[in-house]
């Protein structure tokens, strides 16, 4: 069941991460990179960045608690070791996104208040549901919730954030590209682990489908509500015009990210997140179940 992990060990992880894409980085970005002046000087942009980063910190705190908790729930040695490396990946993500909050002006003694005030309630509910499964040492539920639902969906969001930052904020883009590289392994683990489980134990299919149904709602609601936050395209235009700054032409899935309306962003994200998610489930042998509002 863990044949896909045959070539994976701590040495491989070190050569890929610390000696690979993280080499010469500081908190995930290149030394000397800073948040752009435009973002730091315009409160509207800075506040929006703080709110987005708060969701990233809280999502990663959830993943850190889940992956560390799953180590002792894993039934085999290979999965335990993989989850040990994932735990350090998640701890690093918490650290780099927290550092970004400090860089954006959040004071260290205000961190927890800022996180609690701005976290999306749906993300909190998702974390509670996932960590309840982990606390019960339910390995399959934990992997479905964390590596398939949470990380499968976050993978698309990180890619979109990365594309929108490459030209305007190289520091954030670098942090995200390292995170995306980590996520590839995490979603790969989830898909391969659950895919092989379903193949060898088809009687578990209904069980996994129910888990997906139960755990998807809050994640989708988190992404949905995040797009109603932040400045409108008109407000952004006004600020850019005032400062005489050109929009960047970042494009993702055919949408101009820095000019898109809330509706356009929601549409493209639900099209990609849900579409990709359904395809991923289909490969594993799971039929997507529309989540009911809890």
């Amino acid at each position, binding site marked *: 069941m863990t044949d*896909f992990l045959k070539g994976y060990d701590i040495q*491989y992880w070190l050569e*890929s991460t610390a*000696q*690979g894409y993280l080499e010469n980085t500081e908190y995930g970005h290149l030394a000397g990179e800073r948040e752009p002046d435009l973002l730091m000087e315009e409160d509207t942009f800075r506040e929006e960045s703080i709110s987005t980063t708060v969701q990233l910190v809280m999502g990663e705190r959830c993943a850190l608690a889940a992956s560390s908790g799953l180590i002792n729930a894993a039934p085999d040695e290979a999965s335990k070791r993989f989850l040990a490396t994932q735990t350090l990946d998640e701890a690093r993500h918490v650290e780099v996104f927290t550092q970004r909050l400090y860089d954006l002006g959040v004071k260290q003694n205000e961190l927890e208040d800022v996180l609690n005030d701005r976290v999306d309630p749906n993300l909190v509910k998702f974390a509670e549901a996932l960590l309840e499964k982990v606390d019960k040492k339910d390995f399959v539920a934990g992997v479905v919730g964390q590596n398939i639902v949470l990380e499968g969906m976050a993978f698309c969001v990180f890619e979109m954030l990365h594309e929108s930052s490459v030209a305007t904020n190289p520091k954030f883009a670098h942090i995200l590209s390292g995170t995306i590289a980590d996520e590839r*392994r995490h*979603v*790969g683990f989830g898909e391969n682990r659950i895919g092989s489980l379903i193949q060898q134990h088809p009687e578990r299919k209904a069980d996994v489908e129910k888990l997906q149904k139960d755990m998807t709602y809050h994640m989708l609601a988190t992404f949905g509500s995040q797009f109603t936050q932040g400045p409108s395209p008109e407000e952004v235009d006004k600020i850019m015009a005032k400062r005489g700054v050109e929009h960047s032409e970042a494009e993702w899935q055919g949408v101009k990210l820095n000019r898109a309306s809330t509706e356009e962003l929601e549409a493209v994200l639900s099209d990609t997140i849900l579409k990709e998610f359904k395809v*991923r489930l289909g*490969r594993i042998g799971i039929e997507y179940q529309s989540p009911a509002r809890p």
Partner: protein
Amino acid sequence: MSQQQKRRRYELDDRGFNEVPQKYRKYYRRREGPDDELAPNEILCPVCKIIVRSNRELRPGDRVYCMACLTRLRIAEGADGKLEAEVEY
């Protein structure tokens, strides 16, 4: 001459993919946008969207491994006649 013997071979260069250990980096590259055409020795990993490269032309039935997401892939011919990768669990 059999089909197997006619396979074109490729000299792989390092395309800057630094997400796997050094000695394997030439076997992978990132996709550069929707217009990025795959060469006959390349296949898109459906799990993590990285392009896996082989030093020979790929054919249906071949098996490759995506080290970036730890996934074993089997090459198949898609409905449109193009090669695609199926995950082997």
